[in-house]
Each structure stands twice: as C-alpha cells, then as structure tokens.
C-alpha cells in the first residue's frame, strides 16, 4: 500500500528533529524539564504542593528520572474535585484556550492551554503527521468533531502546522464527506476508525470506488480499535491506517502516534514522560510488561499533569524502532483498567448511567448498557428493568418515563442514548448482579 509515498519527504520535516535525539541527550532533556515542571506545579498549584508536603517531599527530591516514582499519582477525580480551574498553573490572562471532556458525574473535566501549550500541541501533531509520511501538499479532511472535544482543533492546528491543506469538515454527514473527498481530492482522512469504516461502506452504497480516489492515508484515534479493523479499512481503500493516541488531560491527540513501521506508537517523550505501572500496586514496571500507562507532561504551562493515571492498559515496547526514532513506543491501547467506555469519542462511565437512573425513583433499577455499531457509528442502548414503582397501566405514562430517561441520559452523558424498558429479572446476571456492559463493537 502507498508504495509511491516518499519516506524521505516525511522525515525531513524540521519539527521531527527531536524524534531522533540521542538517548542520553533525550534523558537529560527529560530530567531538566521534569524538574522544571515540578518546580512550576509546586509554585503555582496549591493542590499539588499540599500533596507533596503531606508526603514530606519537595521539588529538590527529584534528582534523577527514576525519582519520579516518589511522586504521588494524579487521577481523573482530582480534576473533578478541583473543577473548574483548580489545577491551573497559569493566570487566566495567559490562558488562550479551554477544552472539556465529560467526567464521571456529569461535570466535565476542564483543560487549559497557554499560547506556548497550543504551539507544543501543534508541534507534536505535526510530528505525528510527518511520521505518517504526510507533508505540505497533502489535503487533510478532518472529520473529528470541532468544539470542546480536543480531537477537531488539535488535528486542525497540526495539519496547518505541517503546511498541508485542511478541510475542517467535522463529524457527521457521510454523503457530504464523500462528495468533498472526491471533489477536493482529499489525500488524508482524520477521524475515528469506526467512522472511517462507515464512510467506506457509504461510498460503496453511493457507487464511489474509494480505490480510485487520491486518498492514501488515515490517522485514526479517539477510540480503541483493532488490527482487524485496520485490515478492513486497508482492504476497502488505498488508505494506510495510522493509530494516534492522546487524551485531553495530557494535551489531546498527539501524545503518541504510529510511524510507517506500524510497530507501536511513538510517545513524544521530550514532552510527555511515560511510565507503566501495576494498576493494583502502583509499582513501576519495566519495558515489555503490560500495565497502566502513566504520563507526566514535561512542558505543559497552563495545566501540568504529574504522573497522570490514564487507565489505559499498554506496555512500553523494548528495543528501538526500525524507523530510527529514539522515542520509545507503547503498544496499541485496547482496554482500560477502569470501567470507562468510549462511545463516539465521548467518555462514558456506567456510574453516570446509574446517577441518571437514580434521579427517577430513588431506587436503582437493574440496567445494562449494550454497545453496538450501526453504519460505523457507536450505538448505546440502556436496557432498564421495569420496577413496580416505575410501572404504570397507562401507555402514555410509561412512554413519558421512557422519554425522560432518554433525555436525562442525554444530558448527563452528552450523548444520544436509546432506552429500552425490559421485563423484571430479564437481564443477564452473574452472582446476582446484572452484567453492566455488553460491548459488541470490537470485531
């Protein structure tokens, strides 16, 4: 696939230089930046400082990279507890952008960027794209959602930073996506991998042969996907499919990305320091052992994250990539250490569904989340067992309850959800408890 692509052009982008730093120099840079970010967080973020003080730690205790293990973890609930601006290390006058993603209780997680942070973000996405062999002259159709979600704007700035042409299409409207792809000669598609599959199917229905289009690469992320999906995308088109990784708490997309070797995702280690821990004990694991990915932002100004537990399960791959980059790679993230689900790019916790259901009768009905995929888009159905308190002999009253449940779930999750009322004791149970999630999306 895409054998015509000039690899040299890809790797010649000046922004990619740090990808090839000699390892000792990279480690020295990391240590210097780690000490800087810890000093900054200590000075500016009360929450972080008191955490260290409780443990009798001070910034000067960090003398080597290994000393990072002394520091406490940051977890998602810390962002929630300090909502909205409690973890900011910059005054508002220096903050140029806010993004948000959903949290566990309906309150979003807020993240902030200074101009320097936006520039860093752009530069890492430029490096992602360069590593995928993209360059000036490429026409990048960005079908990630624009808005509070980091995907749309992150990719947009990165594509402009690369010098490519951006089509800021945002998500949805498959027919229009395909029309523009054809008419504008799109060479690169950026979206979730499931949406790409949907577009490929739609193209088939419209009689558009994707293999006749100039489309040659796709940068896919914001949800877990599999090698089987990659094979399917690549068999239906001339797309060379790349996996991109990121999360809002760290910066957004661009924390890591595959290169053309497709053997793991390079982490931009000069900005993000990766560790793998045992999720149960918190012990740091050596390379090659699977565990929870923990990331520390080394250069973030507005909102430094120290040892942030991503809940994503991965390993740091041992050895050097054949591409010549010195950056370490993580394995593809396929599952998580908590129960968070990613539905159409939106973070969903079963506990959010519970809190929404509890708003009704005060007692929690048995429920089950069914995840499937229709037309390449995630579909979420919440099956709710009808309790005697909820039941009513009037259809109108039951229908109203049903509609209220859907509206509340939409509001709490920020996502369109279908509710199905089902009979009592009809949901599958194990040890008396209903299985909360049935995910049929991974194929």
């Amino acid at each position: 696939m895409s054998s015509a692509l000039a690899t040299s052009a890809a790797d010649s982008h000046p922004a990619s230089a740090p990808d090839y730093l000699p390892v000792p120099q990279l480690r020295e840079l990391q240590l210097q930046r780690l000490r800087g970010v810890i000093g900054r967080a200590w000075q500016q973020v009360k929450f972080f400082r008191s955490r260290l003080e409780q443990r009798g730690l001070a910034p000067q205790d960090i003398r080597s990279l290994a000393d990072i293990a002394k520091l406490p973890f940051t977890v998602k609930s810390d962002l929630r507890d300090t909502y909205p601006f409690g973890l900011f290390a910059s005054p508002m006058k220096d903050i140029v952008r806010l993004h948000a993603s959903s949290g566990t209780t309906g309150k979003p997680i807020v993240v902030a960027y200074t101009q320097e942070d936006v520039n860093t973000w752009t530069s890492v996405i430029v490096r992602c794209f360069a590593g995928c062999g993209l360059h000036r002259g490429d026409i990048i159709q960005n079908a990630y959602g624009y808005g509070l979600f980091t995907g749309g704007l992150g990719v947009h700035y990165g594509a402009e930073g690369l010098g490519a042409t951006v089509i800021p299409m945002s998500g949805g409207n498959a027919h229009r996506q395909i029309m523009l792809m054809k008419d504008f000669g799109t060479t690169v598609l950026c979206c979730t991998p499931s949406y790409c599959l949907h577009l490929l199917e739609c193209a088939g229905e419209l009689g558009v042969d994707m293999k006749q289009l100039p489309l040659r690469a796709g940068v896919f992320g914001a949800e877990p996907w599999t090698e089987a999906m990659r094979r399917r995308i690549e068999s239906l088109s001339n797309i060379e499919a790349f996996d991109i990784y990121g999360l809002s708490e760290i910066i957004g997309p661009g924390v890591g990305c595959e290169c053309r070797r497709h053997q793991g995702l390079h982490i931009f280690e000069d900005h993000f320091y990766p560790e793998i821990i045992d999720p149960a004990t918190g012990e740091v694991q050596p390379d090659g052992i699977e565990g929870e990915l923990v990331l520390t932002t080394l250069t973030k100004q507005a909102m430094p994250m120290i040892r942030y537990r991503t809940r994503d399960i991965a390993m740091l791959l041992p050895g050097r990539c054949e591409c010549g980059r010195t950056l370490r790679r993580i394995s593809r993230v396929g599952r998580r250490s908590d129960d968070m689900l990613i539905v159409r790019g939106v973070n969903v916790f079963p506990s959010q569904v519970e809190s929404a259901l509890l708003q009704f009768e005060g007692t929690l009905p048995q429920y089950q989340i069914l995840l499937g995929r229709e037309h390449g888009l995630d579909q979420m159905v919440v099956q709710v067992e009808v309790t005697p308190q909820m039941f009513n002999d009037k259809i109108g009253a039951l229908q109203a309850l049903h509609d209220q449940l859907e509206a509340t779930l939409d509001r709490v999750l920020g996502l369109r959800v279908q509710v199905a009322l089902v009979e009592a004791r009809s949901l599958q149970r194990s040890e008396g408890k209903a299985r909360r999630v049935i995910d049929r999306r991974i194929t």
Partner: protein
Amino acid sequence: MKIQQLSLFAENKPGHIAAPMRLLAQEGVNIRALYLADTQQYGILRMIVADCGAVTRLLEAHGFVVKVSEVLAVEVADRPGGLAHVLGALEGSGINIEYMYAFPYVRGDKAILIFRFGDPDAAIACLQTAGINLLASRELLEKYGSTQDDGESAA
C-alpha cells in the same frame, strides 16, 4: 362501583405473554376481561380477574411487575349507539378517559365497557346522573362468568 384491574408489563417479543398466562392457567385463574396495549418495545396487558389481590401476589411472587388500578364497568345495550350514549353523557364534563375497552356479554343483549378515567369519582357521578348502569365488581364477575368456578378462584 370501582373495579380492580390488574396490569402486567411484557416486552413486545414473541412468547413474552405466554409465561404469565401459563402460570395463571396452572393456578386455575380465569381471566374475565383482557386488553393488550402495545408499543413497538413493550406491551401492557390489562386483565380483570375474580380475586385481584391473590393473582397480584401470585404474579409478583414469580417476578412479574404488576399494578392494580381502578376502573369502571359500564353496562350498555349491545346495539348501535351503545357506546355513543355513554360518551355523550361524559361530553362536556371535562372527565378524561385514559383508555377503554369493551366486550359483549355472552348470553344477553348487553355489552360491557371498561373505562380507565383520570377522575373515577367524577365519572361515577356523571354516568349515574345520566342513568347509565355501572356494574359492581361482584355483579360483573357473576354475570359475565356464571358458568365459571368463581368460588374457587375467589378463595
């Protein structure tokens, strides 16, 4: 005047009404009137049985979700205009009919209309003023099911 009606929740899928009906059959419960309201997803099966309390307990003990509500049984002539006459009496009263269903009285010239009203007391007053015959629970069950084993299932 008010009659107890039992409602049962069932998903709108093949076979979903069979299980509770089998249970009622095993226990010798005769259903005197029945109406199924359905949506695409689910249905509500409304029934009138002799001993509503006992049947409710039976169904609940087997995990079914049921609800007892009060309805009125109106006796009308089983001929054209029977229902129109009752509705005419209600017209202008502002009383809302939540739902209704009807069945003919098997051995006579009467039909029975079952009404679920928003305000049953107002409906009783309104219908009685118009001289419309409302059946009491016992009357309904005896008249309609005179050949049935009332004594047994009412026990």
